């Protein structure tokens, strides 16, 4: 069978992930977007594994899962503290550090 469709799925996941990050206002959706990107990577890795008939594809997927999970854990921990101390959980609340253009 041809892998075009798999790649189309991966491309779809990639575009949706990027759209989520760029467009949504709530921070949780941004994190969801990042997860989608990682899944797209996994699909491509497996397509590669299938194409070259080697287990490396699956090893890649395992590592990606581990690392994406780790990154997510840390980001969520930070998100909780941000919600607690900076009070907002949307993208616009993060305005403490900016160039005081009118200085």
């Amino acid at each position: 069978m041809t892998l075009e469709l798999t790649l189309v799925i991966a491309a779809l996941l990639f575009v949706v992930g990027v759209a989520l990050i760029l467009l949504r206002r709530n921070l949780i959706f941004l994190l969801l977007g990042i997860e989608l990107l990682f899944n797209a990577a996994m699909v491509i890795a497996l397509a590669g594994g299938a194409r070259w008939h080697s287990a490396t594809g699956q090893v890649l997927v395992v590592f990606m899962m581990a690392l994406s999970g780790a990154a997510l854990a840390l980001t969520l921990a930070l998100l909780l503290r941000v919600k607690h101390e900076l009070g907002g959980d949307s993208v616009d609340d993060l305005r403490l550090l900016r160039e005081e253009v009118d200085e």
Partner: protein
Amino acid sequence: MMILLILLLLLIILMSGAALLVVNDPMHGAVNLGISLLALSILFLLLGAPFVAALEVMLYVGAILVLFLFAIMLLRSPLKVREEARWRRGFWWPAVLVVLLTVVLILLFGQRPDLQVTIQEIGPASVGRALFGPYLWLTEAVALLLFAIIAAVLAIHRRDAHDT
């Protein structure tokens, strides 16, 4: 027959992706993500990687998604369910960017080599052998990383640390 199944999976992922983009409440977002992940695990099965498909269900849907739910639960202030705006303030400019991205991916997609392939089943045994064979030190490194992450998360959330 295989093509039909993959098309169905494509449709499901498309549906849940669109829902994800549009839905308002983060809880619904997480659920939609779960649906697309399950569809993906079926795709992995088709690609001849049963171990990874299982892992996808257990690790991804089970652990990471649950993590999300916990986070949402902790973040959600139970008092009011306010109708917050979905899209970021400057909406149009990034939207154009996303469209451009899809256009360039389609253009590049046109120049792909032929991808006709016969699927061979690669069981968990060979993956295990690979993980602890040639990639042994890599797994050790990931182990070290995970351990460091645990220490890091603990450090961030020490109760008495909020004295600044």
